């Protein structure tokens, strides 16, 4: 950790920033001749600058520098080819000797390796699958609960809200203990006569864990929109001769789009960024983008930290882009998204 080079100007920037902030505050108080209420926010303004804005800028800074603090795009090149840095580090003369001895880049472990980009694509695929399954499972559930004739609906929806706030880690562990080799499901399978199966440490287990964790995030926003929807609209459609299916297809579904969009974002974003669900249910055999970032920062090699920052920056951009999409599709926040 001590090898990580910190530019000395870093402290200067922070010190000067703090002084400028205080000076601005004093000037502002002086100009307004007295203490105005907005000043109560000044400690938090400082806090936001130090603990929110500065860390975000640091992610950008580390993404575009090497461990010595020089500007570089290598971290992003490393994203396309995870052996880029290693190939660059090796002495060209040495490399030539190896190559003339008949060894290939592959033998040296220096050939182009697309693991980073592959992991991202796999992560996006897993999150996409999770979102689609959650939508298919969650929409009917939300629709049933939002039915005006179903008196239990508003009570039952609480059962969907509570898990949204619950610790994902604990819920993942509950799922893990259920799927274990001697867990409940395997005990039942053996009792039925099917015999024990390997349920854990594969892609399916990770997918089930993701659906289990994120399903409530799909149900709640859709329920919210359906519940607020004017039921007279679908009644009118029925009166005008629409059958049940057409009423749903032509009236209810289009009106529930803000809820669907909100649900999709709320499922997709955590699904893309998760790392412990895949770690615990995939047993290290299933690697998602979050695991990749985690691994970069657990690494002792400092170059990896810069690469990890670059990956985090890409993730930030991905999330901001999907949030922007959400705002476009649901500008009034009708989905009631917590995000």
């Amino acid at each position, binding site marked *: 950790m001590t090898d990580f080079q910190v530019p000395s100007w870093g402290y200067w920037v922070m010190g000067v920033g703090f002084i400028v902030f205080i000076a601005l505050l004093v000037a502002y108080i002086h100009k307004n001749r007295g203490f105005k209420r907005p000043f109560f*926010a000044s400690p938090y303004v400082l*806090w936001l600058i130090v603990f929110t804005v500065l860390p975000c800028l640091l992610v950008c800074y580390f993404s575009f520098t090497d461990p010595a603090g020089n500007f570089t795009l290598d971290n992003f090149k490393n994203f396309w080819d995870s052996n880029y840095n290693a190939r660059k580090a090796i002495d060209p003369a040495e490399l030539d000797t190896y190559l003339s001895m008949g060894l290939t880049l592959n033998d040296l472990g220096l050939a182009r390796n697309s693991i980073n980009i592959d992991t991202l694509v796999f992560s996006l695929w897993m999150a996409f699958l999770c979102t689609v399954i959650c939508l298919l499972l969650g929409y009917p559930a939300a629709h049933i609960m939002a039915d005006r004739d179903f008196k239990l609906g508003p009570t039952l929806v609480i059962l969907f809200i509570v898990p949204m*706030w*619950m610790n994902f880690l604990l819920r993942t562990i509950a799922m893990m203990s259920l799927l274990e080799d001697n867990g409940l499901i395997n005990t039942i399978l053996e009792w039925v006569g099917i015999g024990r199966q390997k349920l854990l440490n594969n892609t399916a287990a990770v997918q089930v864990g993701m659906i289990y964790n994120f399903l409530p995030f799909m149900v709640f926003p859709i329920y919210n929109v359906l519940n607020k929807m004017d039921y007279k609209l679908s009644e009118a459609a029925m009166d005008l001769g629409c059958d049940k299916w057409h009423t749903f297809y032509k009236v209810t579904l289009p009106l529930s789009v803000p809820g669907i969009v909100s649900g999709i974002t709320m499922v997709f974003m955590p699904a893309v960024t*998760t790392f412990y669900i895949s770690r615990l249910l995939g047993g290290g055999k299933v690697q998602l983008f979050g695991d990749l970032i985690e691994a970069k920062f657990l690494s002792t090699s400092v170059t990896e930290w810069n690469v990890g920052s670059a990956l985090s920056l890409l993730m930030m951009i991905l999330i901001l882009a999907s949030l922007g999409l959400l705002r476009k599709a649901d500008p009034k926040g009708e989905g009631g998204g917590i995000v």
Partner: protein
Amino acid sequence: MKALKRIYLGLILAFLYIPILVLIIQSFNAGESRAKWEGFSFVWYGKLFNDPNIMHSLWITLSIAVLAALFSTILGTLAAIGIHAMRKRPQSLMLTLNNIPMTMPDIVTGISLMLLFIFTRVERGYVTMLLAHITFDTPYVILSVMPKLKQMNKNTYEAALDLGATPMYALLHVILPEVMPGVITGAMLAFTLSLDDFTISYFTTSPLVQNLSTLIYSQARKGIKPTMNALSALMFVVLLVLLLLVNKRTDEEKS
């Protein structure tokens, strides 16, 4: 059709709740095996409270939650009052910045804070975890206090100042009593979120200073032991009660 709908809803809820229920039931199993029920017992809970590692983590978790809730409530309440009185532009800028920790995925928040501590050469541990917790708690306090401020009469504060109150006095005796319910909800929410957090703690602490979540994670990677089952079950129940309390408060305040 109606029965079919109910069965479907029942299945979905079973999917969501059976794992948790099984975990809780298994934590009372006398035997070590998860496959066989060997009688009801508190033996794992007994082991839990005699494990110095777990007790140390419990102490860290609780003390951080209390301190983070306290600091973020003070910071957040002051900030909410300030932001509420701001003009439109700075207000919307502040609210956007305030939203960042809530919209960013936890892993990015955790890593960016970790980079801050590495950059400033602050050794990661108890203090850095506390700072991180205050950072992600405060936006929620602000969101709980804001609605109460909007309900308040705008002129009472000015009136207090006109009548000779200092800003501090007016804050403590005029604004604060009115927004108190929101402040308490915010504090409870901050406490719960802090107890609940795993990802951000994971990146902002060292392996030597672990809260319950990071301890459970590091143990679970090696396979789940019955004491971990008991610990998870206990945390589930505590968090559930806290969440229901917070939910009830927010619902009451809305109506």
